[in-house]
């Protein structure tokens, strides 16, 4: 019997930015090994939702669970710090603007977390970095500095950096939105490869074609709420909601 407990579960997630309600009670769950793509117009709250999964955004209401552990539990400041740091080690996050550490080499970008947080020895960490870089096709850049890399290479290093912590899930926040069009594919390829390895992933994206190709399930969000969700084939070909239809039409025509 496989573990049927969801890997990620979000219940009634609510979030305000000042008077603006950006998440209006979101429920969704991601099964082990499942790949969920979250699409929707700018300002729909999809990035906020993703960021609240690893508590980069603090929810004003609702719960987030990772593999049976509540992420946003109520604790005193210090115990919560310890709790959230350990939870975050189990979730890899990839940002739109890569956020590589510019003062560190590619190797150091990848090894700093395993060394400082897991006490890994330097040689082991470097071997791990090499393995992760090999996965993203950049083993030859191990001693380069981020400034010397293209956008696509930076994002692949950022993925390698997240993978080096051996996370249970990977969160992608518009990982290819800041890239020149010709560099998008190399990053998508790495993500597809992760999908083939059954990594649990939540992908916030503007790329409908990629979402259709890689996701098991697509969630369409608008104005802080989930409008519709389903298998990519159903959602893209036969959207039920008018809001989904008009959004997809704009995309397909544009």
């Amino acid at each position: 019997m496989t573990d049927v407990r969801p890997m990620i579960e979000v219940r009634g997630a609510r979030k305000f930015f000042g008077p603006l309600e950006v998440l209006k009670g979101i429920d969704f769950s991601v099964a082990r090994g499942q790949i969920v793509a979250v699409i929707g117009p700018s300002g729909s709250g999809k990035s906020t939702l993703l960021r609240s999964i690893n508590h980069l955004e603090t929810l004003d209401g609702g719960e987030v669970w990772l593999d049976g552990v509540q992420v946003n539990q109520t604790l005193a400041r210090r115990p919560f710090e310890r709790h959230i740091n350990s939870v975050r080690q189990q979730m890899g996050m990839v940002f739109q603007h890569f956020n590589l550490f510019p003062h560190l080499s590619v190797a150091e970008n990848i090894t700093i977390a395993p060394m400082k947080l897991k006490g890994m020895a330097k040689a082991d960490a470097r071997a791990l970095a090499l393995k992760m870089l090999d996965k993203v096709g950049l083993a030859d850049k191990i001693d380069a500095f981020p400034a010397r890399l293209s956008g696509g290479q930076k994002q692949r290093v950022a993925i390698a950096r997240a993978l080096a912590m051996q996370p249970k899930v990977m969160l992608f926040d518009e990982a290819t939105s800041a890239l020149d069009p010709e560099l998008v594919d190399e990053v998508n390829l790495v993500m597809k490869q992760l999908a083939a390895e059954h990594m649990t992933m939540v992908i916030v994206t503007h790329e409908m074609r990629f979402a259709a190709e890689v996701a098991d399930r697509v969630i369409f969000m608008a104005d802080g709420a989930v409008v519709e969700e389903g298998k990519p084939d159903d959602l893209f070909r036969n959207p039920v909601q008018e809001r989904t239809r008009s959004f997809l039409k704009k995309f397909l025509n544009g």
Partner: protein
Amino acid sequence: MDIALIGRIIPVFVQAAWTTVQISLLSLVLGLAVAALIAGLRLSHLAVLRFIGAAYVSVFRGTPALLQIFLLYFGGPQLGIQLEPFAAGAIALGLNIGAYMAESIRGGVLSVDRGQMEAARSLGFGEGQSMRWIVLPQAAKLMIRPLGVNAVALVKGTALVATISVVELTYTAQRFIGSTYKPFEIFAVTAVLYMIMVYGLTLVIDRLDRAYAEEA
């Protein structure tokens, strides 16, 4: 122009300049320590700590440094704080420049892209660890120039302690003018000595700046 006078006073003035260097260095060390503390307060999550930091900066930047020196040296004894002129001068200057340097440090930290902290936190680093390993190394580079400007201002600002009779360069100049009535020669020598000190300091700052620039 009394060249002979210049030749005669130089050894004494170099000695006085050495006192200026000493008081500058002491105030600089004190100022940096104060600045690190105040910048830390100003960047804190706790409103009360932020307020204390902000209050410190407004008080020390919002009043004349000369007044701060007087307050400590002349007003201190009333509170039981009895200090030698040199110590009072160094402490007052350090507390004063600390307010300016705190803003330079804070500016450096705030100039580091927010995404750096987020990326570190997302890997599982705590707030302090993220600061230490990710944000501060990048901020340090951005602080060197502004802190250098503060340090240059400090060296020139040491002239103020002449007013509480610390025998540094400006005090010595005034004393010699009283006895020789040759203000031009004496102030010219004094100015050249200040310029040499400031030039030396800017060379150090340039070196630090380059050393950090090469690292990235």
